[in-house]
């Protein structure tokens, strides 16, 4: 019987010829990740397990990206705790202000994740790395403590669900629109416990940035992972980022899927998720009556160079609407520098946007753009739950960078064609 890419990667990491969906395995991990809000609990639990050293310092990444640069004394204490642990354990992949980027943009960029690897992270959006053909999934801090101590993790091999998108994308439509559209169809638990696997000509033509955006939001459909086949785009992306060898796995033609969804790319419009669930989708063009107070372009979902390019292209020579605060956050230092070199930062600042240092800040209502009562925000982030970005009565509309940038200029939800 055929196997999926997820089953093959998990079999290889648990010393088995093959494994089947539904089985529990104990898999070895190639990278263990935590950030400044999840690492402290993991470090505390690590201490309770009774081991002194992490299993392999080179296979642990600690990324202080959520409340950095530290917004207050408490968050500074927290980062200090992570920093001291990293130094004490000689962890080379500790990322502090000046080197730090948003974790799920940073790890692929730095070559810390490769095809065929198993990555676990104390952050739900760890599923992002499925874009590279790695099996990556989010967990809690205790799981990460166990993984740091043992280099292993218990896991149930997930069933897989196939999402096939064929055809050519409409103008300005990107990975974000494809994944929002999919979640709108299957629901926030439509892929619960499952690995989503993306395939089809529209997926093959997608850049790595677009794939990372899609895999990132598999969790918003309840998914355990969001898997993409390794192809030339993957090989080109990985090349030059690391010397580590990697293994490429591919789903068999007769692999078993519990569900298959087919979409035609030409039917997928620029899409927005209305409050308060990512599945509450509508075409952006139908929401022009929604006036906005803030637009955020950034995050582990859409803070990559292509996203910043789209924003700058639409805002160059235009002005952010006087009633809107527009916050642009390149996700890593490399993306920031690239944005400066390409003149994107200049275009954005001239338009009246602010361009921030890398941080997760506003996405989780942490800092750098909290919403007041009743305010509305168009955001390229990944969650629009009640109160996610601030006051309980505030509202978040999720969109891709084209809709967010167009909306910032228009002062209401809109699409580039209206500019």
């Amino acid at each position, binding site marked *: 019987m055929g196997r999926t890419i997820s089953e093959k990667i998990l079999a290889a990491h648990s010393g088995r010829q093959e494994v089947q969906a539904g089985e*529990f395995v*104990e898999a070895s991990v190639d990278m263990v990740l935590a950030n400044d*809000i*999840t690492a*402290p*609990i993991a470090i505390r*639990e690590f201490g*309770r*397990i*009774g081991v002194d050293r992490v299993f392999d310092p080179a296979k642990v990444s600690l990324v202080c990206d959520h409340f950095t640069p530290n917004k*207050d004394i*408490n*968050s500074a*204490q*927290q980062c200090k705790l992570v920093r001291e642990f990293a130094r004490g354990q000689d962890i080379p992949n500790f990322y502090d202000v000046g080197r730090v980027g948003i974790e799920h943009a940073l790890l692929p960029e730095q070559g810390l994740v490769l095809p065929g690897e198993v990555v676990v992270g*104390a*952050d*739900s959006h*760890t599923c992002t790395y499925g874009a590279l053909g790695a099996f990556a999934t*989010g*967990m*809690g*801090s*205790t*799981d990460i*403590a*166990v993984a740091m*101590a*043992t280099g*292993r993790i*218990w896991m149930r091999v997930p069933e897989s669900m196939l999402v096939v998108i064929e055809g050519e994308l409409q103008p300005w439509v990107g990975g974000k629109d494809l994944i929002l559209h999919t979640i709108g169809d299957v629901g*926030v*638990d439509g892929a*619960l*416990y499952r690995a989503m696997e993306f395939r089809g000509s529209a997926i093959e033509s997608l850049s790595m940035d677009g794939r990372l955006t899609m895999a990132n939001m598999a*969790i918003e459909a*309840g998914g*355990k992972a969001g898997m993409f086949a390794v192809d030339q785009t993957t090989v080109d992306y990985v090349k030059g980022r690391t010397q580590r060898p990697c293994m490429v796995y591919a789903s068999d033609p007769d692999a078993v899927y519990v569900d298959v969804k087919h979409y035609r790319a030409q039917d997928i419009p620029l899409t927005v998720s209305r409050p308060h*669930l990512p599945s509450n989708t509508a075409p952006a063009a139908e929401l022009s009556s929604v006036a906005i107070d803030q637009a955020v372009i950034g995050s582990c979902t859409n803070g990559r160079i292509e996203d910043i390019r789209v924003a700058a292209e639409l805002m160059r020579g235009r002005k952010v609407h006087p009633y809107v605060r527009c916050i642009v956050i390149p996700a890593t230092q490399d993306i920031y520098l690239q944005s400066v070199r390409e003149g994107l930062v200049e275009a954005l600042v001239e338009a009246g946007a602010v361009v921030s240092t890398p941080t997760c800040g506003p996405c*989780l*209502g*942490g800092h750098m753009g909290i919403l007041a009562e009743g305010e509305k925000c168009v955001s390229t982030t990944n*969650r629009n*739950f*009640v*109160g*996610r970005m601030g006051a*309980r009565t505030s509202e978040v509309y999720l969109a891709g960078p084209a809709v967010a940038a167009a909306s910032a200029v228009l002062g209401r939800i809109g699409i580039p064609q209206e500019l």
Partner: protein
Amino acid sequence: MARVWKFGDDIDTDQIVPGRYSPYMTSDADLPKYAFIEFRPEFPKEVRPGDVIVAEDNFGCGSSREYAPLALKRCGIAAIVANSFARIFFRNAINLGIPLFEDPAAVQALNDGDVVELDAAAGRITVGGRTIELRPQPRFVQDILAAGTIADYIRDHGRFPGE
């Protein structure tokens, strides 16, 4: 005697403990005070050790932040019964030693404010004189619960449960 706190679909971890109430933004000791603080403000005031949470679909979706289940544990929640759980919450709760039961029939039978008697180890809940048998948990989950948490298990046994 314990009471049932019933919730609907898609209760996300930001509703259980909003990000801005996370332990280091406030203090670790205060964590139980922030369980459902905005979503259901009477919860942290009235919840008693031994109480049971009952929810519909996809309980605990969203962020992996472990202080959501940790806050519930520190409130003394004895078990959570739901139609389904979001998977990261599911792992976190098991690892922390909170008994979880996926049991739609039980969810249907239990209402907010019900007074119940729970035997989590036996998988049994009694309401209004009627006893509901809950779906049993896998062996390795029972092992973790018996040890306390997964960290306790690995410390005590030097290996993963179920090996």
